[in-house]
């Protein structure tokens, strides 16, 4: 990244450069008739990656993010039904959304193994905060989520006492106040400052007991 104070400011529809094998249209730009145009009002940034210059435009206002397939999102469970549960997407990755989006998490997307033997009320409860991945859009109205990975599932869940529960296994969480155990599909959230040795230990832990 150049550290000069020269900044190229552009507006939508402004020609940035000619597109070629070296110069590729990135975020905030579009290519048309052999030229790269800006699609946002902001500062032009050229990122060099493996000999290819990616021309991007960074706008001052954050572009409204929309959940796209493959994103990991943070959602709150609203309603749990026997075959699916309705959720509300609160964040996409690190970005907190101003407007929540509705999503559906179906029974067959909760786990990777034994998909049809999943009981929704033993995996989630209303009010839980979950980490899920957005599936490719098939339905017109709502997004579809999946927690079929070790790192996805329930992150925060409050017990009846109103206290966040502590996970004790991949399928159970326990309340620290009254010690009652509740069944959830727990996410394997690896802390950022964990030791590499410790991480090996968690890898060898058994996968969720399905009985």
């Amino acid at each position, binding site marked *: *990244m150049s*550290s000069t104070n020269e*900044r190229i*400011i552009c*507006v*939508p*529809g*402004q*020609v940035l450069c000619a597109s070629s094998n070296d110069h590729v249209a990135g975020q*905030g730009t*579009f290519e*048309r008739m052999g030229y790269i*145009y800006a*699609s*946002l*009002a*902001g*500062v032009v940034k050229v990122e060099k990656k493996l000999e290819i210059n990616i021309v991007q435009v*960074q*706008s*001052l*206002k*954050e*572009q*409204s993010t*929309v959940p796209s397939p493959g994103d990991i999102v943070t959602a709150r469970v609203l309603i749990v039904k026997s075959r699916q549960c309705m959720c509300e997407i609160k964040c996409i990755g690190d970005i907190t959304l*101003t*407007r929540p*989006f*509705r999503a559906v998490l179906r029974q067959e997307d909760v786990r990777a193994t034994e998909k049809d033997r999943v009981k929704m009320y033993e995996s989630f409860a209303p009010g839980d905060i979950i980490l899920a991945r957005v599936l490719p*859009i098939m339905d*017109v*109205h709502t997004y579809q989520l999946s927690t079929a990975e070790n790192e996805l599932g329930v992150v925060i869940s409050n017990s009846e006492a109103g206290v966040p529960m502590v996970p004790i296994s991949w399928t159970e969480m326990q309340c620290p106040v009254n010690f009652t155990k509740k069944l959830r599909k727990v996410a394997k959230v690896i802390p950022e400052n964990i030791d590499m040795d410790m991480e090996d230990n968690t890898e060898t832990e058994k996968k969720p007991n399905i009985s």
Partner: protein
Amino acid sequence: MPVDHRRIQGPECSEDYRKPKTLDAALLKKGSRRADGRKCGEQRKIFLKPGVVSQAKGSAYIELDHTKVICSVFDPREKASRNLEQQTVRGEIFCEFKFASFSGVQRRSHQQEADDKEYSLLLKNALEPAVCLHEFPNFQVDVQVLVLQDDGSSLAAAITCAGLALADAAVPMYDLPVGLSKAFSGDTEFFDPTGAEERMCLRGVDGESDHGVFTIGFLPTFNQVSQLFHSGHISSDRFGKMISEVGTLAAEVHKAVQAILLSAVKSSIDSSDNSKLLL
């Protein structure tokens, strides 16, 4: 507001059905100058300001002498309609155009009337080709336009204003749309007409068939007309001539919008402490 459907709501005062013999003398003084001193092909001075509504993601305010329009653009939200046949790959723009009750000489209803709804659709048609709709599939962006004072060319001003507001809201666009309007009666043409000129040209003059008001939504970079709305009567070769002139007429407005947007970006870079941009 309870509306009476059983009776025909006629206008409050009646107008002479006969067309005047000549154009109103008050509109043209000293031969070629218009009532406000402009030449026939001259645009009014534009005042544009982006980022005026704090609650909206993007906004803009435009003033064309006495025509004042304010536009707000909001974050994309899930599409309101649940129509299964609708395309899911594209996003949508939802436009709401409204003349404020105090915008004209006669007080208007606080709810959308027939012409508000028509202008909403025209505005949507003008803005849609300019926006990269594939970037927000299954979502709609709300654009709300309020005309604070109407002195002619309000739709054209709204198109320009909405284009700037969309750019201010960081909605990806192919181009900055620009709105133009022209009123003509016979051989006399008024570019960027005032309210009185518009009303005169909509009525027309006895003996001259060509008359009316043209409103065009234009994308200058690609030289494309996104929306064309004409009320009146025009011959086909005159129509062709009008279209070919649009490019040159739009250049001035486009330059103004670009300059305003560039200076707005520059001032927010200078004022913000955002170190990410300085890298």
